[in-house]
């Protein structure tokens, strides 16, 4: 079997074995979304307006908080050092690691989001656009989150710091993502927003693995 496929499967297996931790973002995601109707108003008219924003901010926070310790264990056990020293591509390893984490952690968020849509009285006809947007967005956010995790890998308490670093970087994703859903619910054309989101998706997937591997190397050089 191709060693990269093997690596990917073992990574997914590892996250799955720790599924209780991996599923925490999902629980967080659902709880936070349920707070908004309580804090604001249960009136469908208001909920419908804020639903895309709530879901997108919620997804962003859940992703960043979940990814904060992505490389922590590999760093502490010295696996990361072996990756860096090994002749095979660190970028590809990072890429597969993030994708495997996404499969275990973010995919459940997307699967769960239709239920939140019902809670927040969001029109069901815009569901398709929301899901496509969430797919593009969570992958992009996962790579950004991994960058934050890589930059702070040698720090013990980094949750809040990662959020401060990444939230400003992630605003364009939030804007295009939430507005594609909002426009779709408004019966307007959501495609421009989705295309822009896709552009960010390709830009991030193409460039950020390089930045992540540079960041990982930083913590080993003296």
């Amino acid at each position, binding site marked *: 079997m191709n060693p990269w496929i093997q690596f990917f499967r073992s990574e997914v297996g590892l996250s799955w074995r720790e599924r209780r931790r991996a599923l925490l973002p999902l629980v967080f995601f659902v709880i936070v979304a349920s707070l908004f109707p309580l804090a604001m108003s249960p009136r469908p008219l208001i909920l419908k307006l804020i639903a895309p924003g709530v879901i997108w901010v919620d997804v962003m926070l859940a992703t960043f908080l979940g990814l904060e310790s992505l490389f922590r264990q590999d760093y502490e056990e010295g696996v990361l050092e072996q990756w860096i020293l090994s002749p095979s591509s660190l970028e590809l390893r990072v890429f597969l690691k993030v994708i495997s984490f996404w499969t275990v952690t973010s995919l459940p968020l997307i699967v769960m989001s239709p239920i939140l849509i019902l809670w927040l009285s969001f029109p069901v006809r815009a569901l398709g656009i929301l899901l496509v947007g969430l797919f593009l967005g969570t992958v992009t956010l996962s790579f950004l989150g991994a*960058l934050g995790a890589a*930059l*702070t890998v*040698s*720090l013990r308490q980094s949750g809040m*710091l990662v959020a*401060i*670093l990444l*939230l*400003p*970087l992630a*605003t*364009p994703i939030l*804007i*295009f993502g939430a*507005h594609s859903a909002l426009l779709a619910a408004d019966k307007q054309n959501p495609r421009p927003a989705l295309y*822009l989101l896709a552009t*960010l998706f390709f830009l991030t997937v193409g*460039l*950020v693995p390089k*930045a992540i591997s*540079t*960041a990982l190397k*930083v*913590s080993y*050089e*003296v």
Partner: protein
Amino acid sequence: MTQFSLFFHRLASPPHFYELSKPWGRAFSWIALVLILVGLFGGLWLAPRDFQQGNGFRIMYVHVPSAWMSLFVFMVMAASAFVGLVWRMRLAYAVAAASAPLGAAFTAVALVTGSLWGKPMWGTYWVWDARLTSELILFFLYLGFITLNRSFEDQQTGDRAAAILALVGAVDIPIVHYSVDWWQTLHQGSSFKGLTSEIAPSMLWPLLVMMTGFMFYYGWLVLWRTRSEILLRESDREWTKRVVGS
């Protein structure tokens, strides 16, 4: 080696930079003082009153230079971060670390003066105007850079990590600006164009003088701060002993 590249080679060596930057900094400080005073006089007294905005437009003479500097300083920071990462130059990291607080300060001034300008123009201190919003996000980016730079035991790790953040941020800023612009046209149309219109030469020259003055002010302070940052990064070297006199 030519005279020119020799000059830069020597400049990059910390002890040389330390001595060379002192007279430059002093010169910059005087130029900045003169230019800013001239700009203030021109902007607050000589420039004619705007026929639409009355004297309120004069906030421009502090707002526009600060906003311009906030972007310029980030570019300097990203460029020196790049130089630091590629050529492993300690001096470049020191420049980036020295620039960040200054850039954050310019951004804060741009935000506050923008709000104060907004009140008479829009009737409220804050609207989610595209430019103010991008400026706010820029401010957050500066804060992130400063925190990350100072979070590590080892200053070198902090420098490198923050340098990566600065580069990613430099790619992100135009995207943020575009996305906020796009978002704004979606929600408000393009009705908030009040801040830009053709500007008369009698109003323009004080602005240009102020902007140049701000550049020299930044140049002065960044040299000063870079000297301190270098000292901290080279505290294990012999030459710093001579400088601090121990």
